[in-house]
């Protein structure tokens, strides 16, 4: 499960007021580097819940250290998304503000959204505490009969 997928997942257990975002309790993580499509990443930024991404990143950090070795560093993210992305404004708005920083930010986002895979663990509903397990990178979100 990538963190981009996690950003969309929600618990629908009966009686849940807000089953989002799900807390990640990873027990096995893998890293797989993939080619970056800058335009794609910029586009995605306008669609994700950034604060949910921040907390997800923090939740997986420890497991990344133990599973991926001390050489691997989970990129850090600013508390608030750079304005140009959160507003969805056109690029002409602030020209060449700080290209190095922008590129670094997008690369960090790419790594966190796409390249870190939670293969095993649990997703926990913040409301009800219901645990959904993850196996082979696939979360099982099937509800029991009494949860519908």
């Amino acid at each position: 499960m990538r963190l981009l997928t996690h950003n969309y997942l929600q618990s629908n257990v009966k009686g849940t007021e807000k089953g989002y975002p799900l807390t990640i309790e990873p027990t096995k993580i893998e890293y797989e580097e993939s080619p970056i499509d800058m335009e794609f990443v910029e586009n995605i930024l306008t669609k994700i819940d950034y604060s949910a991404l921040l907390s997800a990143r923090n939740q997986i950090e420890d497991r990344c250290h133990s599973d991926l070795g001390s050489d691997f560093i989970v990129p850090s993210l600013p508390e608030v998304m750079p304005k140009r992305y959160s507003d969805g404004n056109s690029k002409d708005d602030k020209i060449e503000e700080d290209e190095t920083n922008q590129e670094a930010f997008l690369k960090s986002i790419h790594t966190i959204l796409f390249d870190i895979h939670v293969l095993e663990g649990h997703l926990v509903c913040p409301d009800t505490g219901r645990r959904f397990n993850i196996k082979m990178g696939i979360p099982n979100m099937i509800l029991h009969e009494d949860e519908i």
Partner: protein
Amino acid sequence: VKPLDLVQSRDFPPRWGNIDEETNDSGIATPITERQHVHAVYDAIAKQWHHTRGKRGVLWPGATIFLQNLPRGSIVADVGCGDGKYFPAIWHAGSYVIGTDISLPLLETSVGACTREGDEGPELRQVSDQNLSFNARPPVAVADCMNVPLRSDSCDAAICIAVMHHLSTRPRRIRCLQELARIVKKGGTVNVQAWAFEQETNSRRKFAGTDVFVPFNSQPRYLDKVSQDEAKVLRGKKNQRIKVDQNLDKKRGK
């Protein structure tokens, strides 16, 4: 793989009884018949399904065009994604898919299902280098379309192909549509396709009723340790006349 029970019926051809009796209060819980004759069947036939339909990239009409017409960078929900056969089309169109399906065995066949562009393998199931990592770990989750585990108004589009005809009651079909509408943002698009009762006059498909089983002729080589006789399983589906298999004929003859 455990063989399923044959459906016993005095009618000829066998007809599916009134399913509505089985639904509970909420109206959307899985009826036993669907669990036995749709869910369990797909779990059992997953490999053969993937080999005969998924791998060859046989897609339902208009789906490819629908997906290609989405703006690049769309987030697409594929509800009832099965072995992920629509994923390559979505990735090729520059979008991101999140697939859900009730069958874990089917979802597992989606992992690493595509070959790399240029390599040997079914052309319709190829991905570019850019998308190889999606192919290796497709973004999927096990879920019931009655409760799609995605947040509301989050997706740009959704597809739901060849799912509705497996939902045996009206409340369930309505609920599926409601879920699709819920997860897609306002202004987004949804593509739903399912078998029609009406078929063209020259079609070899003839539908005697609206609620019947369709037999699935499983090939023993896809099943582990199951004898040929036991390997006849029935798949629950609307709108097709049932074919009586050889064993039933012989039993009736006695």
